[in-house]
């Protein structure tokens, strides 16, 4: 069975370690926060200018001056700090953020990522993604394995305008966990009930397959 969005988020959360400063992108990455163990010492960064994101507010706590980069209302944790966009991206480009988790339209064998525009069709802008992928120590992409019309989003070479080159470390989809290595994409895990053959079939990029492929633990 392919994983649900929540299960994908839960799998990605296992890549977060105590002491990490983490930046979460919009969509499934935002859900990852729900699966970080409560007692784990992790601080969430929001690129609009905050360290220490807390849970969503109750109706009474809503504050229009307090939002995350997805423009959602949030709360602050004890020990939070606020700062300007310059300071925010100084810490991002400066390599202080341990991990960024973001969505993508395409990822390829070189660890290139495309996630901000489809020429002539869709224009969102890159936001902070180009800075995050060059600055964060680890970059994880969490996304659907194939597009709505069934074509692979994991390619030998990205076709859309790039967000960054050679920056992605790990890809988590509803079917598999794939590591970007110097030699190409290595299949690490398959989703429960999903065969390696099904993954190969859904992936246009070449996958390195060895005997140690594990089942994803959700």
């Amino acid at each position: 069975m392919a994983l649900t969005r929540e299960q994908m988020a839960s799998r990605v959360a296992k890549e977060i370690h105590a002491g990490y400063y983490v930046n979460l992108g919009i969509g499934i990455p935002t859900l990852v926060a729900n699966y970080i163990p409560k007692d784990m010492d992790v601080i969430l960064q929001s690129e609009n200018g905050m360290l220490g994101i807390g849970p969503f507010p109750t109706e009474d706590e809503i504050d229009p001056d307090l939002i995350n980069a997805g423009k959602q209302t949030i709360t602050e944790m004890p020990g939070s700090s606020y700062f300007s966009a310059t300071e925010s991206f100084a810490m991002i480009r400066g390599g202080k953020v341990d991990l960024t988790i973001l969505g993508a339209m395409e990822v390829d064998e070189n660890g290139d990522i495309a996630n901000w525009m489809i020429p002539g069709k869709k224009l969102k802008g890159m936001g902070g993604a180009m800075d995050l992928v060059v600055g964060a120590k680890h970059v994880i992409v969490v996304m659907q394995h194939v597009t709505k019309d069934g074509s692979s989003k994991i390619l030998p070479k990205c076709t859309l305008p790039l967000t960054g080159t050679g920056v992605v470390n790990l890809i988590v989809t509803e079917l598999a966990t794939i590591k970007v290595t110097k030699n190409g994409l290595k299949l690490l895990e398959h989703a429960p009930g999903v065969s390696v053959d099904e993954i190969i079939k859904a992936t246009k990029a070449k996958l390195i397959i060895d005997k140690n492929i594990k089942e994803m633990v959700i």
Partner: protein
Amino acid sequence: MNKIVANADIAIRDVFDGATIAIGGFGICGIPENCIAALVKLDVKNLTCVSNNAGIDDFGIGLLLQKPQIKKMISSYVGENKLFERLVLSGEIELEATPQGTLAEKLRAGGAGIPAFFTPTGAGTIVATNKEVRVYNGRNYILEESITTDFAIVKAWKGDALGNLVYRKTARNFNPIVATAGRVTIAEVEELVPVGSINPDMVHTPGIYVKRIFQGSNYEKRIENRTTRSN
């Protein structure tokens, strides 16, 4: 020194057709609502607007896109504004898509007298098109030019007659750097306070950057994505 003006109309009175304007805010959080409304009323056209986002269709900078009064936006993310996306895809408005950190640094550098800088952000992407590339320690960096503007418009929580500003929570965002990048910087604040009542250690934008200041009114402070938990 007294930089207080009566209202937004007076604060932005000399904005002219074809002017470049940097505007603070992130989405519609921490935006200068009063000044944007005054710009709509003034009906200036062909503006080049530097702002991280383009607001939403019917609020924030989105209001300046209705006619449109803007000919070019320099922004990082415009995903929440359908009208803007349509205007750009049809070629009616030009968009210089700029990575968020690069946009922030362009404004910082501009305000700080630095004409250009090298950044790793965007290397190997279309952002690097026609830009000088230099290799430091085996890594590619691209040359980005800084930004200064005719006008800079910011929104702060508190301010005084000297132009000292304090922002609140994530409404700070681009405001402090936008404030440094304008030849004329205009600040609207929720509350004007007496000179001396802001603790000097707590000033976010020192008054030297601000030319005009006024206390705004009728803030809507709309929320783009209202997300809550039940308990």
